[in-house]
């Protein structure tokens, strides 16, 4: 007997389906950043909140260990003053001549390059507003997240450099392990030796290996910019290792272009874990399984 409430199969119960639809935006999406709240409509509520907080005699906060700050060059500042530790909610800033090293207890370290503003927004979450950091993470995957204006960089066990330009465009280059770049509606996996850009309004772009042919890099950039006609050039230029880029193109294109991409991966890669029809459907679960099969050829 079908039971929609139990397993989502069978005829949908209208109220259950309505609740699923209403509550889906609250679903856990790994570390994808939350959409920025609209501020104007909530001014009154914010004012009330501030008034009540001011009236509260004591505000307790969770105990959070500070992150050690080491001056590597110049004088990095926290909240405008020289510092040895970075507490919650505070900005660490380096000018054009300063460098700092953040040591994150049990998690790893981050080198903060000149001209960078980075804030510790939660116990294990940073916000990189502008500039660049290089991270070496020793923690288990997914415990350290860096938010940028366009995506969240989720450590999957790795070393990487993350750069945010004025205007918000973000560049990620992974030197060891994996990083997931996550934004609402789109995530990409970037392995060692590959890079990816994200741009405001467009989310994470397709990852490419640093040694990928120029023709592939150019074609992928055009597809990311909305030029589906460039798929043919990407397919023609791809090497076996570039199934990384092709796999990320599968859900971005449709129709004959998707067929061409899927068939090229099938020709270049190891036997797939699922029938071609499932791969052409491009659902997230199928692509995850395919990625696991292809990943060994990316090293």
């Amino acid at each position, binding site marked *: 007997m079908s039971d929609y409430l139990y397993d989502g199969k069978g005829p949908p*119960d209208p109220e259950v389906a309505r609740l699923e639809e209403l509550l*889906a935006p609250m679903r856990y999406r790994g570390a994808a950043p939350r959409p920025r709240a609209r501020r104007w409509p909530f001014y009154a509520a914010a004012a009330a909140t501030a008034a009540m907080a001011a009236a509260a005699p004591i505000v307790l906060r969770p105990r959070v260990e500070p992150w050690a700050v080491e001056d590597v060059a110049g004088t990095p500042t926290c909240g405008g003053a020289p510092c040895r530790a970075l507490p919650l909610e505070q900005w660490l800033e380096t000018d054009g001549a300063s460098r700092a090293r953040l040591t994150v207890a049990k998690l790893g370290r981050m080198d903060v390059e000149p001209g960078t503003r980075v804030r510790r927004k939660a116990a294990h979450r940073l916000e990189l507003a502008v500039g660049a950091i290089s991270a070496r993470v020793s923690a*288990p995957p997914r415990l350290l997240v860096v938010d940028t204006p366009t995506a969240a960089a989720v450590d999957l066990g790795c070393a990487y450099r993350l750069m945010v330009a004025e205007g918000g465009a973000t560049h990620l280059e992974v030197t060891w392990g994996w990083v997931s770049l996550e934004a609402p509606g789109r995530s990409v996996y970037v392995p060692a030796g590959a890079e990816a850009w994200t741009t405001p309004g467009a989310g994470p772009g397709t990852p490419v290996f640093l040694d990928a042919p120029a023709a592939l890099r150019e074609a992928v950039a055009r597809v990311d910019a909305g030029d589906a006609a460039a798929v043919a050039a990407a397919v023609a230029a791809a090497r076996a290792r570039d199934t990384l880029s092709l796999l990320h193109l599968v859900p971005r294109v449709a129709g004959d272009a998707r067929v061409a991409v899927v068939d090229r991966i099938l020709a270049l890669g190891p036997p797939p874990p699922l029938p071609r029809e499932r791969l052409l459907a491009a659902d997230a679960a199928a692509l995850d399984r395919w990625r696991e099969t292809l990943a060994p050829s990316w090293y």
Partner: protein
Amino acid sequence: MAEPAGMRHQHDDRGADAPLVAAARRGDRFAFGALHARYGKMVHAILLGRVPARDAADLVQDVFLRALERIASLRDDAAFGGWLAQIARHRAADHLRARRGESGLPEDLAARDAGTGRAEAAQALAAIRALPDAYCETLLMRLVEGMTGDEIAARTGLTPGSVRVNLHRGMRLLRERLGLPASLADEAKDEVEEVDE
């Protein structure tokens, strides 16, 4: 009112994660990452039932970090899901204690947008949170996280039958509280499960 079906029945598949847990204890951080991928939704649902939605995602990381610090103390690798769920409940309680005195939490600001989907979602979440814990957690795993009943059973250690009971009894209560029409399915499944139990 019938009591929620609790943790008294262990699901037969609960040992499936034991090798990953053992590897994580030995310091295999990729095994721990795999556990994060498997259990992230369950932990988030437990937190969402207790703390403001805007805090829940950040606290998921805290819960896994605490689990990592304490995994050596876990005596039964097959009991990882229940152990992790307890860490999540304690973390939520710590968080609420620490924030006592602060105000203006709510996603519930959405109530300002009466009649919109946001307001309806906030109302539905509040109604689910007011249910007994076992119903609340199970419904959030199903309705928010999109987990199937079998998946909930595998993660929590409950039997599939207990999950089904929690879902249907919880949904029946939720319908009453939200003023939704009663469903014959909830009544029928409830009766079937009571006979099975």
